[in-house]
């Protein structure tokens, strides 16, 4: 039984500066995994290296036992939202259909089947009414949902999401996490780069603490401890004890 994602001794450098160093971990199937760490920890880099979007110095990445190049069709990816030109002439449905391009392969045009599937995905994120809306006319939260729907359309077994909760309203955040749990219920694995420490315990089964090196990886209730967090964030973490609940503030 191959794990969805196996990373072994991964190192990535940017102009001689190490961004990721000797990262090794093995992901269990069907879990929601949060990736947390301070700014510049290499969280986005980790995802991009896993997908082969940036070159790596050492190490291997295997998805269900095979290199990522061969497994594109079972991978879903939600990149950071700013990487797109929102004035592009395309509407919500069109963007979601792009998630099917990988399955279509070269030259083949998306047809009715793709369109219907895309509508279903839009529906799952509650954006079915916005199918014909040009994307620049959507709010931040709506745009995020479109990206999510696009990843759903990829119909993957393993999902990578880069800060999907940034800049979205409470309702959207709730919708996203509900969706993630649905995916989990279907046996899919989701890795999420996450910025908000306060919600890690509520959202994620497992957590990966990262600061250039892997600080901890395992079930949240075991690994997400103050000591481990101090290790990851260095001195930048202040803890407030309050009625048995620790509030974490990053300084």
């Amino acid at each position, binding site marked *: 039984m191959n794990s969805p994602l196996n990373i072994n001794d991964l190192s990535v450098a940017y102009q001689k500066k190490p961004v990721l160093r000797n990262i090794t971990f093995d992901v269990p199937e069907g879990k929601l995994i949060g990736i947390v760490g301070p700014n510049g920890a290499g969280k986005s880099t980790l995802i991009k290296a896993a*997908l*082969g*979007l940036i070159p790596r110095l050492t190490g291997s990445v295997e998805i269900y036992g095979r290199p990522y*190049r061969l497994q*594109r*069709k079972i*991978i879903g*990816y939600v*990149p950071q939202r700013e*990487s*797109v*030109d929102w004035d*592009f*002439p*395309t*509407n919500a449905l*069109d*963007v979601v259909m*792009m998630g099917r*391009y*990988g399955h*279509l392969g*070269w*030259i083949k*045009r*998306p047809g009715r089947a793709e369109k219907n599937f895309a509508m279903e995905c839009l529906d799952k994120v509650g954006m079915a009414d916005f199918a014909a809306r*040009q994307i620049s006319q959507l709010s931040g939260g709506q745009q995020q949902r479109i990206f999510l729907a*696009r990843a759903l359309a*990829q119909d993957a077994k393993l999902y*990578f999401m880069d800060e999907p909760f940034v800049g979205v309203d409470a309702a959207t955040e709730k919708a996203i996490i509900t969706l993630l749990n649905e995916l989990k219920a279907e046996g899919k694995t989701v890795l999420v780069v996450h910025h908000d420490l306060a919600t890690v315990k509520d959202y994620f089964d497992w957590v990966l603490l990262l600061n250039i090196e892997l600080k901890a990886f395992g079930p949240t209730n075991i690994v997400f401890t103050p000591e481990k967090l101090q290790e990851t964030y260095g001195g930048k973490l202040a803890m407030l004890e309050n009625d048995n609940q620790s509030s974490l503030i990053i300084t």
Partner: protein
Amino acid sequence: MLDELKIFLDPNTQWILFGSMLLGLCSGVIGSFAYLRKQSLMGDALSHAALPGVCIAFMLTGSKSVFFFLIGASIAGIIATFGIGFITRHTRIKQDSALAIVLTVFFGLGIVLLTEIQHSGTGNQSGLDKFLFGQAAALVLSDVLIMAVASIVLISVCILFFKEFKITSFDPGFASGMGFPVAFLEQMIMLLIVMAVVIGIQAVGVVLMSSLLVTPAVSARYWTEKLSVMVFLSGIFGALSGMAGTYISASGNNLPTGPIIVLAATVFFILSIIFAPRRGLLSKLLIHLLAKRSVKTSKVKIKGKERTV
């Protein structure tokens, strides 16, 4: 009216007309992608870069054959695209600066070579300075045939790879993640731009070519929110500019065809800015006025209830 249309039965006019329309069509189509990828300056850079290619082709072959010139222009264009890519990938220089550097260096070299050739003792004038501003009126059937073949290739590639071009232009990171070879696709788009430039510089010249790559695309953007419609419209605007340019140039004396085509494209652009629904100035003005009026009436209603807003 019928009398004026007779102009289009004239053989030379037909060649100029078809050549200009094909040129406009191609530049419009590939220009849309360049525009959306924020690479409009690329067309300018590539057309300026073509000049040394044309000069070197002449210096090497000594022939005035347009075929060799086009090969030289293509090679220079391709080298320029690699140069731009190299500079952006391996230095801290951003793409717009890299484009400007390549443009000026290549064009400067081209002018030096051109001056060299002008000073040389070869008894035949090379006709190279015609590449600066083009000579659309001198298009003949063989030119049109070459342009037609190139157009068919360009448009076919754009249709076949439409979704690949779309996703590469919209979200290259995601496209790459899905397994599309983004660098290869981007290079393909650049090659098509080179092709459009090489077709076009005979007619409108190096200096004006970039306008045909930019203006129809920008005009089309105003009319639609769908990429497929935009690319189609852009091609149509380009072709119509070619047609209008030919017609006007055929109607009066001393009206050089190439520059008139460019002016026609600009007119379409201005009309688009003003009259396009939703994005056009007139439209926005109307919406603004209507909105103002509805605010006023709602203010009145509120005031009626003795409430301050």
